[in-house]
């Protein structure tokens, strides 16, 4: 009888970290693992195991594992992966394919090139602009832009003094959506 799948689809694909690591020498020290969830990005994302200590519980779910994390081509340094190691989403990278991942890890100069320059000032909304210009006797008041500058957003470079004058539809990534738009 063929299998009949019920319920919601599982978006993970692979094995648990502990299933893979348990079969390797020194619990996979120095080996690369890939999470299939992160394979949707064009850049490489992988982890290199520094040290793994499975708890050896019945279902092989828990343990402590320290890795070197590379996410979307960026090196994040040492990282404690213990909390997500139970997810059955890991794949082992064979030794001969490791070069593919290591060569695509970006260096500092490459990261510097990728930085996106963003304007320091943007326009106020029209009505607010009118109000402020009347209040401050300034015909063209500018709003200082605030960007999210978290640890994952290092590709942003704020250009001092630059002003954004574009409308929202300019620079579109899907211009066919605006084809029949009347000005």
């Amino acid at each position, binding site marked *: 009888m063929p299998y009949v799948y*019920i*319920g*919601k*689809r599982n978006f993970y694909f692979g094995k648990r970290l502990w299933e893979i690591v348990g079969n390797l020498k020194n619990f996979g020290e120095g080996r690369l693992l890939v999470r299939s969830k992160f394979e949707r990005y064009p850049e490489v994302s992988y982890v290199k195991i520094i040290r793994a200590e499975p708890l050896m519980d019945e279902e092989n779910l828990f343990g402590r594992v320290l890795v070197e994390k590379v996410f979307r081509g960026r090196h994040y340094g040492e990282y404690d992966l213990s909390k997500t190691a139970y997810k059955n989403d890991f794949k082992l990278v064979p030794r001969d394919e490791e070069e593919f991942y290591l060569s695509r890890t970006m260096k500092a100069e490459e990261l510097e090139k990728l930085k996106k320059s963003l304007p320091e000032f*943007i326009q*106020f*909304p029209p009505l*607010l602009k009118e109000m402020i210009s009347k209040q401050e006797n300034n015909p063209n008041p500018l*709003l*200082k*832009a*605030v*960007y*999210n500058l978290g640890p994952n957003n290092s590709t942003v470079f704020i250009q001092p003094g630059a002003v954004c004058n574009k409308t*929202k539809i300019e*620079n*579109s*990534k*899907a211009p*066919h*959506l605006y084809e029949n738009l009347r000005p």
Partner: protein
Amino acid sequence: MFENGHTQRIDVPRCHVNIAFNGSDKTRIIYMTVAISSKHFIMFGSSGSRVLNVINISYIQSRSKRVWVRKPLGSPMAKSKIFRITPKPVLPEDEKAEIKRLFDNYKNSMKSIRHYFFEQSLKQAESGEVAQMKHRLEDQEHERLMEENRLENEKTAMLREERLKIQAEKTQQNVLASLIKKEGEAKLHEIQIEDFLTKQMSTPFIQAENIEKAIEDALANPVNFNFALDLNGYVYRGKDTSIDTIPEEKRERLNSN
């Protein structure tokens, strides 16, 4: 009040009333239900007599006609529909990117505006009329407290002066007493040293003049400090340690205590 549909719901405080009419002419009431709680309601016929107490309120059947009541919010999915799972919508890549771009723009703009208003509010809090008043009150309070502090300081300064004066006198007396005591002790010490010296001088030590005689005496009378012990506690001094030559009475016994 009584318009479209066959049933009309009237919300009376504490209970909900459903009235079912006969067709388009809204003069005849078929039945009326009065909900008492979420699970119980009572059904009345057109004549006003109670027809039945209904517990399951999913629908009511009357004259081969179903009147649906809304499914309770907490009730589960129908058994026949449990495995009906809607697939995830798939968007083209460029549209996804465009949506993300628009959303990012929106997020950044909103964040900037929010930040702007927040800074404005801070500015207003600094320079507004209420803030000025607050500042003035705070300054007055500060001045008052400083004055109070000054008076308190003066008071404590006076007290401190008195206390220090008394303390200085006391220490002077203490120092004098200790000096006198020390002088007396020094005198006593001198006397003790003199006594000790005279005692030392009087003991017959070997003097420099007599040294040759003392050496000769020592050479003439050699002393042997070696001795032997046996298990019974007898001591044999010098070199005469053979038991046979010394009679038992002459042997020296080690004091046990």
